[in-house]
């Protein structure tokens, strides 16, 4: 069956993670000897480590064999492909792939499918030929932050975006979501939107320059938390912490700490551990032969000082409850 190229943000065949149990019943017990492999972008970023923790939580709970690998660095596309290919020959039942780019794991996906392995594309880059995808809506990240500005800064003003690496899907979508939403409001102007390549240092430098150029700036949106924390330092160094709001993306632990401390205004948490659990559950359902919608959307939420304690839990059951209660 020829699938239309996947667009995870707009695919109509989708469901929310919270409906899984209701629509498809409780997770069936995996067959004995089930093995699942996860291949993600890189372990140098907490997001991907947390995602792996989520995978492992479920795998351990259900006694499923689990291997988690990642490329040496973000951008090592062929390296990641090699890793995925090397794993295929080893008899896994399902693979959870978080590709570096939309295309770099395509041959592995094809090989895995041919070998009868259930393949699940987890978050971020989107493999167009993927039959199943689990992840959040990237664009929504930016939309939520823009919405916060619209809700909380009624007078509008100047804002700036610190982008991730040029050409990376998530960076493009997050920026687009933010910029489109805030421009539609009409009161805001995005005065700067510059790349900092996911680097805290480059974000710091870019923010220093922008702060100086725009004395009336009211806020920054950074495409990830590392860069946001760099921006926070630049804002503090410029002595404008009370006037400039800073938002990040991902919800890593340091971001939570910074929100608590009042340094970071907020972040869009996409709950990587929970996402990992959901992804592993979906993979096991697929391995068990269930037919699921093509996209399973995972939760995300804008975390600010007001709700930080609610979401700062390591108890995934509690977190699930909080999120579904909403």
């Amino acid at each position: 069956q020829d699938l239309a190229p996947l667009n995870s943000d707009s695919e109509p065949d989708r469901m929310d993670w919270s409906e899984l149990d209701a629509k498809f019943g409780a997770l069936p017990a995996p067959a004995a000897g089930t093995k699942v492999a996860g291949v993600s972008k890189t372990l140098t970023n907490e997001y991907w480590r947390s995602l792996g923790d989520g995978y492992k939580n479920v795998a351990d709970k259900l006694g499923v064999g689990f291997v988690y690998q990642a490329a040496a660095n973000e951008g090592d596309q062929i390296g990641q492909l090699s890793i995925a290919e090397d794993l295929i020959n080893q008899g896994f039942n399902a693979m959870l792939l978080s590709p570096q780019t939309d295309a770099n794991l395509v041959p592995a996906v094809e090989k895995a499918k041919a070998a009868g392995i259930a393949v699940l594309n987890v978050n971020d880059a989107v493999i167009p030929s993927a039959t199943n995808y689990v992840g959040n809506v990237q664009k929504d990240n930016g939309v939520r932050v823009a919405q916060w500005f619209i809700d909380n800064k009624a007078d509008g003003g100047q804002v700036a975006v610190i982008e991730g690496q040029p050409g990376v899907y998530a960076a493009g979508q997050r920026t687009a979501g933010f910029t489109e939403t805030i421009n539609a409001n009409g009161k805001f102007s995005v005065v700067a939107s510059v790349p900092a390549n996911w680097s805290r240092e480059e974000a710091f430098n870019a923010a220093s320059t922008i702060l100086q150029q725009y004395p009336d700036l009211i806020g920054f949106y950074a495409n990830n938390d590392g860069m946001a924390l760099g921006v926070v330092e630049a804002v503090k160094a410029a002595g404008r912490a009370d006037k400039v709001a800073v938002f990040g993306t991902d919800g890593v632990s340091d971001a939570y700490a910074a929100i608590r401390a009042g340094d970071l205004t907020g972040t869009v948490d996409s709950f990587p551990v929970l996402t990992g659990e959901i992804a592993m559950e979906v993979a096991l359902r697929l391995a068990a032969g269930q037919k699921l919608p093509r996209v399973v959307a995972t939760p995300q939420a804008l975390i600010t000082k007001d709700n930080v304690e609610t979401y700062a839990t390591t108890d995934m059951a509690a977190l699930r409850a909080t999120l579904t209660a909403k």
Partner: protein
Amino acid sequence: MSPVLTPFPLLQRIKFRDAGTLLGLLLIGGVFAVLSPTFLTAPNLLNVLQQSSINACIALGMTLVIISGGIDLSVGPVAALTAVLGASMMVAGVPFGLAVAGALCIGMLCGFINGALIAWGGLQPFIVTLGGLSLYRALALIFTGGQPIFGLPDGFRALTNGTLAGVPNPVVIVAVLAICAWVILNKTPLGEYFMAVGGNPEAARIAGVPVTLTKLAAYMISGLMAAVAAMILIGRLGAAEPTMGTLWELDAIAASAIGGASLMGGRGSIIGTLIGCVILGTLRNGLTLLNVQAFYQLLATGIIIIVAMLIDKATSGK
């Protein structure tokens, strides 16, 4: 006076220097063979070769550039640019043979620009190709708006995904290219020119070597090889991405250096470079098979590269 001129048995052709590199490879392979039962299986070994083929393709061109006393940091972005231009031609309906030819020409053109700035402009290779690293990447991103290009024709993809007598086509293609590179380096005047220009450019010039053309040729071949690598990769991936080829230059330089090329120019070997590529490929494959965690893979890679070089040094003397 040695009376043996012809014929040369293959083993005699593998120089002493390359034997050291080979020993390094055998050692690494031996360790993995002991530790992982999967390692020494035919599909896995083919896998290693297939995975090494892209790097090998780039490294062949890089070796010639290095021998001629230069360096080419722009290979990754050149590959990306040729990939997106070639792919967009195919998607626009250009017969894929023509599109591939076009892509290869674009690769050579990029190489020509690098070479011209170096040979005529008299700039340092490092800085020119560092500029190219940004420039070609930017062109690829601007051309595509940062989007990957999907929908390559099946006929084209079949080329790169097929096998010949059980050997994946990319491996076959790279093997053929390696033979060409070997012939160029060892059998043609151009090869002599590469070594002369890299060894002593002033003496080469006085001896009538066309120094400028030689440098141009080296960078154009490197650009061409980047384009070939790009074609192989987009065929396999079924898509061309403007972000393709990140850090390819380091892998290719590493393979050349492991294979004995001196970054001071004038020295290097095609066979050594190929072995270097396979060493790097084997490393990644073996560590994945052993499920070594990413951080420790990095650690092992660093240590093994250095140890392999020490072994090589110790056995090959110089």
